[in-house]
Structures are given as C-alpha cells and as structure tokens.
C-alpha cells in the first residue's frame, strides 16, 4: 500500500496551536457519533460534502471558553488510505481541499482521533495514519468500560508518551470524562513521533505501542458467550428471517400505530388554521393562496413528519443495539443478485410507508453506487399514498369479488418490488456500473441503545425534512394547487339555477321541483358540486389534462383521467379526490355512494365508462410504477446530490410506467 508522504513540518512539532476547527476521525463503531453528540448536543447542523452523497455534520463544542471549537464529524473509516469515498473525503478534509457545504475549505487546526479502547490494537493503525498528517492531534479513547469488562487496562499516560500527543479516556455513552476533551483540543500539538509509512510498518508500530501500553487483568465470572448465541440466531437462514420479520413487524406496527395520533392532530390543526384564515381574510387571491395553497401545502407535507421521526428514531435504536448489522446479512442474500446489498433493505422496506423517509434512510448504505441505486429504486415500493388508488381501482375491476380484489392488491405490491429490483439491476449494470462490494461488516457488540443519540439523530433528520418541506416541497405543492384552482370561472348556469331555487324556497324550507321535494341544503350541496366540477374542468390543470390527453390515449385514459394523473403529482392519493370532484363534484372519496358513482361514470360520449377494464388495468400498472410524487423527486435530488438524479428517477419511472401501462391496455383490450 502506498502512503501519502506528508512534508515533515518539524517547525510545528511540539508547538501549541490555538484550535478553531477540529476534524473528528475514527473507525466505525467506535462511538464517534455518540461523542460528537455529547460534545455538541443540538449545536450542530447536518448537510453534505459538496458533490457527494456523504453526510457532513458540523457542530460547536459546548463549553464556557471564549474561543469556540468547531467540530467536523468525518465518516467512519478503517484507514485513510482506502479507495473508498468515505476515506477520500477524510483525506481531502485533512488536506484542506474539502469542507462541508457552506464551510470554507482549509486544513483543520487539529485532528481528534476517536479510538475504541476495547479494540485498540487495530484502532492505533488509524491513529498512526492521522499522526503522519503532521496536524495537531488528540486521541480520545472511548468504550473504556467495555475494555475494562474484558480485563483490558490502558495506561493513558504511557500511550500519550508513545503517540507524542495528548490522550483522553472517556465514556461517550455516559458522558464521563467528556468534559476533559475541549481543553485538550485547545492545547493540541503536533505529535513528536512519526509512525512508519508502510502498512506492515504501521501495523507493527501499532502492535508495539499497544503491547507497551495495554495490560490485562483476569476477569472473574465470565458467563456464556451471548454474542455468539445471538449472532447464530440472528443470522440463521430461517431463525434469522423469522427474527427479522418479527422486528420489522414491530417496527412498522409501532410507526403506524403511534404516528396516527400526531398525524391526525397535524391534519386537524392545519385544517382549522386554513378555515380560520379563510374566514378572516377577504375573498380573493391572497386568501386562496394563504389558506388553500400555503397552509394546506405545509400541512400536507408536515403530516409525514411523525412517521419520519418515528422511523428514524427506531432505526437509530436498532442500529445502536448492534442488531441491524446482523439483519443486513440476512437480507443480503436476497438483494445481492440485483446489485444491492443487505444495507438497502431497511430503506426499501421503509419506502412501503413513504418513499421520503426511505430515501433518507439510504444514507446508511456505505457504497455510493449502491446508495444511489437504492435511492433511485425506493419509490417503486408501494407507499401508503398509493393505497387509496389501489382500493379504488381494484374495487372497480372486481366489484363483487373481495378475494380477487385482495389478489390484485397484493399483486400491485409484488409488481412494485419487481419493478424496483429490475430497475436496480439495470442501474447497476449501466449508469452505476461497478463492482459490487462483497459484504464485510464489523459486527458491533450488542449493547443498550443510547436514547440521546436516537433523539439527536431523529432531530437531525426531522430538521432536514422540515427544511426541505419549507422550500422545494412547499413550492411544488403551491404550484400544483394554483394549477388546480385557477383560473376562476363564472359558475355554470345549472349551479346558478339551483341556488335561485334555494333562494325561492317555501317557508317550510322545501322546494317543489319535478314532483320531488328538495331541502334547501340539498340544493346548495348540489350547486356546490356542480360548481366544483365545472371549476376543476376549466382550471389550468383541467385544460392541461385535455391538452395532454392524446399522450395518454395509448393507455386508454380520457381527459378526466389525464387530469387525475396530472394533479396527483402533488401526492398520489390526490388522484382519488380529483376524480371524485371531476365526476361527482364532491371530494369525499371515502363515501361508498361516491365510489359507486365513480365506478359507473361515463366519458363525454355518455356511453363508454371512464374506468373501462382495460383502462383500469393500465391505470393500476401506471400507478404502481410511475413517479407520481414530486416531493419525493425533491428529496431524491437532495439526497443523491443533484437534480439530475431526481429528473432521472422521474423520467425512468414514468417512462417504464407509461410503456407497461400501454402494453397492459393493449393486452387486456385484445383479450376482451
């Protein structure tokens, strides 16, 4: 292995340097992130390194000193010399040629190497690599409690002497000893030793330092090796799958159960806020914009926040226990044939709830190509927003057969998974071609999860989502609202007539019309429905639907279905309410009468059903495979590192959906 040979800056050696920016380096699973959270708490921001999908966290150490310490949490790496994106980022940050987005690139004032005391021999090799960078260095020993349980005693003074830099021992989980780190970072100095520059030499040097500074005491009462037993269970071909299924069921049951209350609350609050603003402001564009565009748009996006928070919290807890590393191996055997690894399973599974948190969970995938392939294919998984569409269409297709409805419903999920896997395979063979990294994972020790870490991770992800929701997603929602609500048109004659009838009602509140007695409220409801139907048909979205209808002709869609497809780019479930408004004038698609009216609705010729069997099958295939959710595209662009990925995802998914939808229409039509 070739090592970067740093220039020997002997004039800096031994000098105390005022520290401003400190890079946090360490092996994975050393408690580096836990330490970062202990040192910075909420005083940090999370972003990306420019041009990469790698997460960058920058925080400020909490203490009372005047000169602040800025901490850059670098990705966990086993060696600075590996040919991996994570190691490349760490090298470039230490060399001063890369900085997290929004930061100026300059060499850090110091390096803080986090080393696991329970596996110090290996960790010292990375310490040696860091020391060779000739930057002021501090070594922080974590997991001293685990080491002590194993009988390992580290002589920190001897270690500091051997490394030529300060060494601080702490327990990142409990926070014991963490307060000693900041003063040491301020006084960091360039180590006065130079480890060898070859891998063999470095390993021998690390062995020597370890042997000189680590002692061993006998530990009594060492029980059975539970780690071995649990590992055998969790990675067993059948037992491991069963455990995984139980854990995943518990995870998603918890999410769906617990998220329901806050989601309803958010919907209620924003609904009331929208109504209040609507009542408070004078009629006009401003009122519509604020009440129906902004407030409804924000509410529609924030409603996902409870699910995202719960998912991220539970994933963090699972990861911290050490279980997820084992689960990754269980799923690896199923995903490897498609160019993905076991790491991708959790994001793909999460995407069945909502693709947005699923895509955000892809950050845990270490390999860049696999990460991008997973991001691109995650929205193929049938999210909960598709469920109303599936329910409507399977009901239309098999009105009298719940068993067939269920089979078609399950088939949608299977088709989505197949679409995603095939797309991942194609991506990995073309655009993201490259050797699949055979899975080799360090399996961390099983431990009690840190609630603090889970809460801070959740806070991070939630902040990122809200920030995104406040910009791209909100903008998309507002544009789609405007397209659906404008231009304002005069009410149709029929609505005016109904209102006039209502005004001329009998003193008892009833109207005699065609031998039927109508209540005033019924008349007004009917007038509202006719007006909504008319307004939707003449909105920009309606006009656009009519304009693009020829494009959807091969799938058998009429202009109303085309409008439904266009408006559902805001969110898939919007399709059902749009169709309900277009056909019946009411948006309560849960009402069985409205569903029945939808199923029996005809096209403009008055004879052909809107939902012919062939068109319904084509629509079902289209909705399973199409990227009908622009907020997801915005999140993809952010997580993948550019809009080109979002556009690729949109184009590919809609293209596949269109082609297969058209094919389905042809086949079903041919079969009669």
């Amino acid at each position: 292995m070739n090592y970067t040979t740093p220039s020997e800056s002997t004039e800096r050696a031994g000098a105390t340097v005022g520290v401003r920016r400190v890079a946090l380096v360490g092996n994975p699973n050393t408690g580096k992130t836990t330490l970062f959270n202990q040192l910075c708490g909420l005083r940090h921001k999370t972003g990306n390194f420019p041009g990469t999908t790698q997460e960058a966290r920058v925080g400020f150490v909490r203490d009372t000193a005047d000169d602040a310490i800025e901490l850059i949490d670098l990705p966990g790496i086993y060696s600075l010399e590996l040919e991996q994106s994570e190691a490349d980022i760490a090298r470039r940050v230490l060399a001063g040629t890369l900085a997290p987005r929004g930061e100026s690139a300059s060499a850090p004032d110091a390096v803080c190497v986090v080393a696991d005391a329970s596996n110090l021999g290996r960790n010292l090799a990375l310490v040696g690599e860091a020391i060779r960078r000739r930057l002021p260095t501090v070594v922080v020993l974590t997991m001293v409690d685990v080491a002590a349980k194993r009988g390992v005693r580290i002589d920190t003074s001897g270690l500091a002497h051997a490394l030529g830099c300060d060494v601080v021992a702490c327990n990142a989980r409990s926070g014991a000893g963490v307060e000693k780190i900041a003063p040491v970072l301020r006084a960091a100095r360039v180590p006065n030793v130079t480890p060898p520059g070859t891998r063999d030499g470095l390993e021998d040097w690390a062995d020597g330092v370890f042997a000189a500074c680590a002692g061993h005491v006998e530990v009594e009462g060492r029980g059975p090796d539970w780690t071995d037993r649990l590992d055998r269970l969790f990675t067993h071909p059948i037992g491991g799958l069963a455990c995984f299924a139980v854990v995943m069921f518990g995870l998603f049951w918890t999410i769906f159960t617990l998220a329901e209350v806050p989601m309803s609350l958010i919907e209620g609050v924003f609904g009331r806020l929208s109504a209040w603003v609507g009542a408070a402001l004078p009629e006009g564009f401003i009122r519509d914009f604020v009440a129906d565009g902004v407030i409804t748009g924000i509410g529609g996006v924030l409603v996902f926040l409870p699910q995202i928070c719960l998912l991220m919290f539970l994933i963090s807890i699972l990861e911290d226990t050490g279980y997820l590393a084992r689960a990754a191996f269980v799923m690896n055997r199923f995903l490897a044939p498609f160019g993905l690894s076991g790491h991708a399973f959790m994001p793909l599974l999460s995407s069945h709830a909502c693709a947005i948190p699923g895509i955000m969970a892809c950050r845990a995938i270490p390999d860049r190509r696999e990460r991008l392939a997973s991001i691109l294919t995650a929205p193929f998984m049938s999210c909960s927003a598709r469920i109303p569409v599936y329910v409507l269409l399977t009901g239309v297709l098999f009105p009298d057969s719940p068993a067939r409805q269920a089979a078609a419903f399950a088939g949608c999920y299977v088709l989505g998974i197949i679409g995603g896997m095939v797309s991942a395979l194609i991506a990995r063979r073309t655009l993201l071609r490259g050797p699949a990294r055979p899975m080799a994972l360090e399996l961390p020790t099983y431990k009690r999860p840190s609630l603090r870490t889970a809460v801070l991770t959740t806070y991070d992800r939630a902040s990122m989502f809200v920030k995104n929701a406040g910009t791209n997603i909100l903008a998309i929602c507002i544009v789609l609202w405007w397209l659906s609500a404008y231009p304002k048109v005069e009410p149709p004659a029929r609505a005016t007539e109904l209102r006039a009838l209502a005004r001329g009602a009998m003193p008892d509140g009833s109207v005699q019309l065609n031998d039927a007695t109508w209540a005033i409220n019924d008349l007004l409801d009917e007038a509202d429905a006719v007006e909504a139907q008319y307004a939707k048909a003449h909105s920009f979205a309606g006009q656009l639907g009519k304009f693009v209808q020829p494009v959807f002709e091969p799938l058998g869609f009429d202009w109303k279905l085309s409008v439904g497809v266009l408006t559902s780019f805001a969110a898939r479930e919007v399709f059902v309410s749009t169709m309900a408004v277009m056909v019946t004038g009411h948006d309560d698609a849960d009402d069985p009468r409205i569903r029945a009216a939808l199923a029996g609705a005809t096209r403009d010729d008055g004879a052909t059903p809107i939902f012919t069997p062939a068109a319904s099958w084509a629509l079902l295939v289209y909705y399973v495979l199409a990227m009908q959710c622009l907020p997801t595209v915005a999140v993809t662009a952010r997580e993948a590192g550019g809009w080109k990925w979002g556009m690729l995802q949109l184009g590919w998914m809609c293209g596949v959906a269109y082609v297969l939808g058209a094919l389905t229409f042809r086949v079903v039509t041919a079969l009669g």
Partner: protein
Amino acid sequence: MVRVNHEAVEPTKASPTPCEKGGVPHRAMALTSLRSGDVGVVCETCMEPGDATLLRAMGLRPSALVRVCRVGEPTIIEVLPSRRGEGTQCSRPDCRCRIGLVWVLAQRVMVRVDGP
C-alpha cells in the same frame, strides 16, 4: 482476480511464517473449512485488492488470530490480537473485534490451524 500475499515478514526458523511463500501454503485452508469455535491464523487473502485492503484495515491481516463463531452465510469471525509469529497462542489483552463476511469472501481467506 488478484492473489494478494500480505506476508511481509521474512521467515525464520524460530518464528515460522503462517504460510509458505510461493506454491501451496503449508496446511493452509479456506476459512470456510473451519468449524465453529476453531481458531486459526490468517495466511493470505485471495481476492480483489480493494476487498483485501479493506479486510486488512478491519483487522483481518496476515498473522491475525481468528476464532470462527459461525460458518456459512455469513461467516462470522472474531479477530483476536496476535503479533506476527505468535501462532495461535495468545497472551495479549482481550482486545478483539467481530467481523461478518459473505461466503464468497470468507472462502478466499486462507488460514492455518496449528495442532496435531
């Protein structure tokens, strides 16, 4: 496929190398040939250089003492500390790490087992 031999220490009679250089390694076998609970010394890794380098950085280096915890998919090993030439007798502090390897990688890790 590149055959990567990490052995960097010259062989001496007092401290035999884990595997003979050139030709068939002495009593070396694939990691996957071992049984759960067996302890062996890593001789070499016959795999893509990138994978070999990663494993080495993870601690699976020549002369590393490994205990097999599970054989199969995945193969799980525990890397125990050992200095080059110490063989399977380890008197070092109990510093260790556990690594999971997919079968295709594990069968390319050659190990030597001391004993009768």
